[in-house]
């Protein structure tokens, strides 16, 4: 089919747009925004058409590949997993680009902005399309670079520059783990395959997956524990995902990354970059499934992150920081969704990705609404807002829709509900199943507690921003149409997407690993990993089905009482005197522990010491060499007198002496 041959254009078009906008954007109207918008729209259309084709025939995935060098290839792989991500990323990115035309209208550096977001989109699409782990890693790093550039977009602000640096360095920790995982995997595969195979590409996903049983059989001795190589590799991969997706303990960069423009926050922190980690785990899910203990780690880290971030979300006063912690929390849910694959197998990828896509819609909407408020009012601080709904009705309505989706309001057992309801509740119910099945109840507890807090913090945000009386003297007006139209489109998706696609979506994704590219028996892999899959899903008790929506409503009630009715004076509770509030407001002293003690104190101290050593030792050698060279040059340059006659004399003398020398050598010796 001709359409499949266009698949490579999906990342290439935005990359071309980057070049054009970067170099010629200044001469175009509104910073050349039209080029990225058109190219991403084209990418979106191609992705959508391919996805529709795939929906009709999920066995026939798009898979193309050209040799790169040795055992590596460059390739395109669009299976259900990639197709869903591609369509979502290009769609959300397209809406954000349209929105940014209005949002960035007053910024002088528009060409740079649009060029960078375009490159970012290209990198993300390339990451999703990759059919081998190296190509994925390259795009992964490119995404990291773009996030650095975009977070530090207003680099003249010291806080933005610092946030960009922090984001880059923190994710670098994860990236190093990811790279280490790839190296371990490659050496193992080379050992197992006995060298570079002819005609095959060792690091293509289908090759990797076909070696899973042998990999699982390899054992390493780690601190006296026998550990499967597959567990090491998957945990290292998960380390990369932890860095990129802002999981505990590498989540510290994400709240600070709000220093960038709000559109960047929406693009990076809702739809694309942070989901790359989840995507990585989903992409290599068969490996995780066959690796003992890996999925448990994923489930626990995800569950803990969901709760941990939510607790901080309820005390933040900066509208964007609340959303940042909310993002971390929701990413925790996605990881938890993957982790419970220990009990439900392939279905885990379905529910996790379902939440990922729904989250992309409603979180992008939340960020864009926040951006709309900030754009109109000019402050981030919710304590200075209040009553904005009167000035900006469209923004208020769409943001409320997003909040309902985030809190997961809906009626269990029917298909009535917001997008977040279907996906988040599916994860929570799977966590229950996981707890019931394996006895690990902790992730379920985390997820229920986090659901309560999610509802509290998001309605706190809504009430503090949109209701009541203005707490400061702000002007403000409703945003232009280029901003409100994307809001409305996203709001529709946030409300109804989940309900409409619920069952089809999950079935579609379950086909990811059984098609003409890879065909895996996931049940057999789970046995390798020592997980017992639930064979027949017994219906959960009704109470369990209703519990998430119940806690969400309780959370809504708490927020309503505290922040709308203001029934309780919060002055005492929310002050530095309350130790819990102080702990949360200071974000568990993470800054003091991670940044000041660990990073600056230990790491920087050690590095500085060695740097000084290098200065003294190596530099002295280098400098002495340079001194000798320069001195020799000074002395020898006197030979160049510039007088032609001298040169002639030297040439003649040289030739004469040379002839004498040759004569001597041939005659005498």
């Amino acid at each position, binding site marked *: 089919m001709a359409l499949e041959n266009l698949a490579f254009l999906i990342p290439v078009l935005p990359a071309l747009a980057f070049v054009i906008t970067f170099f010629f954007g200044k001469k175009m109207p509104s910073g050349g925004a039209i080029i990225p918008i058109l190219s991403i729209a084209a990418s979106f259309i191609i992705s959508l058409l391919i996805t529709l084709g795939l929906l009709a025939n999920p066995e026939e995935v798009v898979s193309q590949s050209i040799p790169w060098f040795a055992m590596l290839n460059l390739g395109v792989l669009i299976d259900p997993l990639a197709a869903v991500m591609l369509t979502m990323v290009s769609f959300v990115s397209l809406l954000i680009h349209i929105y940014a035309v209005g949002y960035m209208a007053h910024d002088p550096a528009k060409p740079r902005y649009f060029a960078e977001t375009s490159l970012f989109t290209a990198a993300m699409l390339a990451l999703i399309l990759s059919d081998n782990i190296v190509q994925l890693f390259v795009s992964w790093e490119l995404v990291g670079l773009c996030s650095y550039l975009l977070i530090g977009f207003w680099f003249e602000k010291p806080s933005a520059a610092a946030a960009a640096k922090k984001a880059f360095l923190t994710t670098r920790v994860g990236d190093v783990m990811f790279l280490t995982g790839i190296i371990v995997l490659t050496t193992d595969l080379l050992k197992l395959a006995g060298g570079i195979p002819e005609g095959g590409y060792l690091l293509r996903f289908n090759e990797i997956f076909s070696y899973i049983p042998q990999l699982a059989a390899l054992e390493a001795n780690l601190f006296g524990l026998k550990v499967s190589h597959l567990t090491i590799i998957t945990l290292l991969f998960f380390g990369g995902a932890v860095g990129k997706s802002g999981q505990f303990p590498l989540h510290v960069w994400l709240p600070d990354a709000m220093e960038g423009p709000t559109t960047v926050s929406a693009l990076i922190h809702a739809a694309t970059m942070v989901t790359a980690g989840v995507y990585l785990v989903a992409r290599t899910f068969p490996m995780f499934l066959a690796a003992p203990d890996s999925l448990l780690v994923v489930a626990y880290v995800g569950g803990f992150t969901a709760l941990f971030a939510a607790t901080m979300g309820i005390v933040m006063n900066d509208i964007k920081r609340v959303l940042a912690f909310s993002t971390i929390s929701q990413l925790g849910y996605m990881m938890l969704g993957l982790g419970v694959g220990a009990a439900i197998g392939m279905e885990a990828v379905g529910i996790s990705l379902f939440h990922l896509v729904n989250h992309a819609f409603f979180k992008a909407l939340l960020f864009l609404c926040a951006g709309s408020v900030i754009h109109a009012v000019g402050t981030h601080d919710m304590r200075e807002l209040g009553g904005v709904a009167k000035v900006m009705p469209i923004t208020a309505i769409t943001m409320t829709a997003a909040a309902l989706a985030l809190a997961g309001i809906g009626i269990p057992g029917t298909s009535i509900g917001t997008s977040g309801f279907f996906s988040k509740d599916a994860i929570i119910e799977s966590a229950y199943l996981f707890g019931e099945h394996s006895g690990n109840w902790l992730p379920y507890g985390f997820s229920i507690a986090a659901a309560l807090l999610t509802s509290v913090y998001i309605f706190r945000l809504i009430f503090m921003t949109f209701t009541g009386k203005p707490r400061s003297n702000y002007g403000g007006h409703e945003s232009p149409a280029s901003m409100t139209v994307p809001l409305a489109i996203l709001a529709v998706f946030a409300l109804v997407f989940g309900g409409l696609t619920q069952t089809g979506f999950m079935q579609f994704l379950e086909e990811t690993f059984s098609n003409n590219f890879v065909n895996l028996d996931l049940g057999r892999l789970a046995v390798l990993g020592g997980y017992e899959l639930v064979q027949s899903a017994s219906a959960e008790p009704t109470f369990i089905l209703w519990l998430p929506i119940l806690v969400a409503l309780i959370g809504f009630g708490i927020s309503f009482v505290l922040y709308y009715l203001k029934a309780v004076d919060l002055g005492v509770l929310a002050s530095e005197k309350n130790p819990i509030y102080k702990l949360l407001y200071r974000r568990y002293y993470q800054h003091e522990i991670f940044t000041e003690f660990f990073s600056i104190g230990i790491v920087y101290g050690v590095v500085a010491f060695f740097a000084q050593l290098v200065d003294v030792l190596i530099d002295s050698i280098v400098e002495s060499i340079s001194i000798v060279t320069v001195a020799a040059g000074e002395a020898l340059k006197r030979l160049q007198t510039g007088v032609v006659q001298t040169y002639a*004399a030297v040439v*003649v*003398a040289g030739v*004469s002496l040379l002839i004498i020398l040759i004569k001597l050598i041939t005659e005498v010796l």
Partner: protein
Amino acid sequence: MQTKKLAAFGIAVLFLAVLGLGIFGTSWNTVSELPENFEDPSNVEGIGMLIFTHYVVPFEVLSLVLLATLIGAIYMAKGEESK
């Protein structure tokens, strides 16, 4: 100035010595007796024949070289003021 003269002289003598050694140390393969034709001692005719037969191409090329030299010399000697 004196040292420069001495150095130049020394180098010239050295070169001459090298050349002289080469010249007088080689046994040149020459004709035993110079041909002599007392009726017509001139060989201009022979040279003319050679130039216009065997060496006609180099001769024509030389004419081009001379023409180029002429143009170049005039151009450079004319200088700025006449432009």
